[in-house]
């Protein structure tokens, strides 16, 4: 424990007591460590550095003030949670949908990186090259956790860290120990593996649900006006809706689209909570908090 660590601990506590989001705590710690260590490396004392930088309480307050400003400026005071089933889908809903569709691509990428990394780590572990490889792999996992966080903040509207996880001072050995002991390294890895099945379900569900909704919305009218079959091939025969069913079928399609919008918002919210827990960790847990 050096003195900078004590400062960071006080900063963490000050932010927590003000109810700061874990992501803000992670950012603030990164900034404070950067300034204080650089100032000391420049030949100053810690006391001088803190005098210029500000006491933990002051710094914590300025983060919260700025965070409120960001939230209001970027998102406005109105929150999406007011949307009911039949609210017109706006930009937030479109962003949730974009995330669900994108998750197949990112899921494949994360899964491949995690699998290749794990297999190579296990294979190379018997050779001397294995050790640096494993460390690079862990670094990659932690970086992907940050990148995924940025995507989630942009599309799912949940505050995620904008800074990488802070590594402890004091040499490579300390850093490696910290990485291996940090729950987030492992939950991020599990998250990467889990994104493939989730991505398949998100993508498949979105495409299927919207496809079905659009089909019911549009094709009954096509059948009515152009004579195209509602279902072109059912056991080798075409299937036509009865005339009276055109309007109800189309209305059901429209309803289905709105239900899909609501599901997309709901899944987006649940996924954001899950991702935050896996990638950022909760402040309450001892190992989830940043130990320096």
């Amino acid at each position, binding site marked *: 424990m050096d003195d900078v660590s004590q400062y960071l601990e006080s900063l963490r506590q000050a932010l927590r007591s003000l109810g700061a989001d874990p992501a803000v705590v992670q*950012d*603030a710690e*990164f*900034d*404070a*460590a*950067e*300034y204080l*260590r*650089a*100032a000391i*490396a*420049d030949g100053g004392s810690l006391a001088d550095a803190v005098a*210029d*930088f*500000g006491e933990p309480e*002051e*710094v914590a307050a*300025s*983060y919260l*003030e*700025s*965070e409120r*400003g*960001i939230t209001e*400026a*970027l998102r406005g005071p109105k929150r999406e949670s007011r949307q009911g089933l039949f609210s017109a889908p706006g930009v937030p809903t479109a962003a949730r949908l974009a995330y669900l569709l994108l998750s197949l691509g990112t899921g494949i990428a994360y899964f491949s990186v995690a699998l290749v990394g794990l297999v190579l780590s296990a294979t190379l572990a018997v050779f001397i090259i294995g050790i640096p490889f494993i460390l690079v792999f862990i670094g990659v996992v932690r970086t992907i956790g940050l990148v995924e966080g940025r995507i989630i903040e942009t599309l799912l509207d949940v505050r995620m860290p*904008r*800074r*990488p996880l*802070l*590594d402890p*001072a004091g040499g490579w050995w300390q850093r490696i120990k910290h990485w291996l002991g940090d729950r987030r390294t492992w939950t991020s890895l599990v998250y990467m593996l889990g994104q493939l099945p989730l991505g398949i379900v998100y993508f498949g569900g979105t495409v299927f649900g919207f496809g079905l909704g659009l089909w019911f919305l549009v094709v009954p009218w096509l059948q009515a006006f152009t004579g195209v079959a509602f279902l072109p091939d059912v056991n080798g025969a075409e299937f036509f809706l009865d005339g009276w069913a055109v309007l109800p079928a189309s209305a059901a399609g429209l309803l289905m689209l709105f239900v899909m919008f609501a599901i997309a918002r709901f899944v987006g919210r649940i996924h954001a909570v899950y991702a935050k827990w896996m990638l950022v960790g909760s402040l309450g847990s001892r190992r989830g908090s940043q130990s320096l």
Partner: protein
Amino acid sequence: MTERAVRKLRKELNSGTVALVLLSMLEGAAEPMYGYEIARRFGESGGDAVKLGALYPVLRSLEAQGLLTSTVEPSDAGPPRKYYDVTDEGVATLETWRQVWEETRDRVDRWLEASNG
């Protein structure tokens, strides 16, 4: 006026101008600057009215608004550094802010002179 009231006024005046100063500093810089570098230059030029720790959240807020971009790079001397650079949107915004600032400053000056004279 008590010292506390002076501090409060300073803080209020600074709260709007720090973002302008930081954006202008980064726009004028030849290459991206990292947090400590920015804070030190700010401290050298601006007295002690603003705690340097308060600059970092402002940088972050400017980044969140798309006026700055950043890259994190490892450093030999300590923790990784976050280098900030101005985006095109940032340059355009700075131009507007500069005009607003000049108008405000001139207006306040005129009021002060009028009430003085």
